């Protein structure tokens, strides 16, 4: 079931068209929202949150109409903004408590949840300091905590790992995965860091010039156009290559212990295993070829540019 359904949505800022006839379906799991600057990602998020209204089109978020039920939508969405913004004058725990209270959670329960969420986010005693004294990483954790404190069904994270050191980045990605995989929350991650998308996302949406140029499962997106399987062997590769060629496969020997077998994995792998069994060759590793997300991203944007021109 699609959590976000947008049909032919357009958003104009004066004479500038930020979203141009966008139609989109996003379901559960983790979805990566990608696009170059000015692609319309921020406007799309604001539309989903009801912070701006569509100029035309229609849509539903979590089954609620984006025109008439924005309050209900907001109650069920958690949003982590990209900006370095925080509630001045409050401590970390007070900020999260306030975010919970604004979502109609009573004060005592809000405080309990604030501590629980800050524990989940790995924030220690620094939670009692005012947010002005927080480092970039701590502010990032705080924004994340404020986004999830009311237990939203759909979480929109805008650049959740930007400005984080590698250790904190990994921890943040783990938290996102915990929310999506163990707790069943739908997550939209808007980011420019493609390896993050490749690491955690199930689906990828690429936007360019206010339109969706790609909306596909990540596995499908990364499936190579020229499929092959790299085989690392315990023994000599050349004799095993002959066995594979005899089985009708196209093979390139890469070095004395590895070779590449061309063809889709689901077709070639049984033949490779069969040949290894007959040839009594030990296989150390099988690596299906994949297209990099960067290639897909650039191709999607170039397609959009070509369509425009």
């Amino acid at each position: 079931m699609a959590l976000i359904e947008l049909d032919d949505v357009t958003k104009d800022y004066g004479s500038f068209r930020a979203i141009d006839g966008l139609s989109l379906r996003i379901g559960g799991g983790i979805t990566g929202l990608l696009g170059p600057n000015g692609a319309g990602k921020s406007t799309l998020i604001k539309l989903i949150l009801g912070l701006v209204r569509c100029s035309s089109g229609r849509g539903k978020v979590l089954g609620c109409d984006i025109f008439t039920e924005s309050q209900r939508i907001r109650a069920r969405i958690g949003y982590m903004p990209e900006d370095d913004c925080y509630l001045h004058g409050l401590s970390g725990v007070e900020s999260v408590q306030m975010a919970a209270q604004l979502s109609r959670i009573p004060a005592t329960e809000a405080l309990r949840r604030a501590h629980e969420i800050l524990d989940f986010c790995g924030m220690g005693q620094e939670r009692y300091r005012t947010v002005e004294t927080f480092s970039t990483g701590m502010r990032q954790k705080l924004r994340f905590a404020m986004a999830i404190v009311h237990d939203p069904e759909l979480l929109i994270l805008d650049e959740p790992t930007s400005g984080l050191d590698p250790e904190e980045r990994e921890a943040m990605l783990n938290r996102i995965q915990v929310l999506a995989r163990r707790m069943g929350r739908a997550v939209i991650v808007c980011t420019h860091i493609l390896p993050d998308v490749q690491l955690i996302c199930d689906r990828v949406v690429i936007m360019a010039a206010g339109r969706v140029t790609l909306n596909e499962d990540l596995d499908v997106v990364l499936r190579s156009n020229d499929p092959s399987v790299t085989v690392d062997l315990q023994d000599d590769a050349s004799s095993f290559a002959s066995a594979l060629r005899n089985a009708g496969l196209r093979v390139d020997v890469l070095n004395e212990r590895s070779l590449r077998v061309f063809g889709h994995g689901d077709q070639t792998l049984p033949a490779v295993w069969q040949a290894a069994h007959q040839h009594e060759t030990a296989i150390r590793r099988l690596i299906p070829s994949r297209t990099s997300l960067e290639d897909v991203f650039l191709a999607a944007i170039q397609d959009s540019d070509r369509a425009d021109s």
Partner: protein
Amino acid sequence: MTPLQAMIRFELSRVLTAGRIVWWLILASFPILITGLIRFFPMSDPAAARNLDTHVFWSWTIYLLVPCITCALGVLLSAGPAISTELEQRSWVYLATRPNGIFWMLLGKYVVAFCWATTAAVAGLSVAVLFSMQETLFRIWMACAGLSVLAAMSYAAVFLLIGTIFPQRSMLFCVVWAGFAEGIISLIPAVINRITVQYRLRTLFVQWARPGGSIDTLPILGESLAEGPWYIQILWLLSLTAVFLATAQVVAHRREFTSAAESDV
């Protein structure tokens, strides 16, 4: 009421900073300073001083200083920049993306602005009225304290609305409105003065402070006082406040505010 409590607590945490407390003290000191100067530097013309009706003089002076200037200035400083503060500090997005966040934010800011201005005005009034050394000082205090509450209540709603319509230049537009509408339009003997807060406050002042027949017949006030008993005037003020607050809510919900940092597409 949990969201309102949270907003009030948040706003109070901002109000109870050293800078804002200094502003509160300056605001409360303003009527004290002016009445003190009047008391300790009397008129140079003894004949004029003898002819002066001191009750009339002091009650009008305190009325102008406290409910009109201190209260209006107090809510102008706190309610006027309600939206612009959040946009500048980039906290708007946190508040606006909560269910009814905009509603509770405006209401919380209104309540705190009202309390901040009223306490400063009443504190200033309580000392300033002593300088009048009038037998009627308690009556003046009662009238002006009540008017301070009503003035802060009404002006806070007006300035909140102005701040919502013009978030970029809210203070400037609030000052222009205060000077033009409350200062000039309220004195125009026409239907338009009925939408001003000052028109009602002035009428209530005349009724409550009872500064004597001479006040009622001042040519400048002859046509600029409302008819009807005090509760009608209060009802008018409550209605104006409700209308201004409701309009501010509608405007804030319908407008698409974006801070500079998030104005990218």
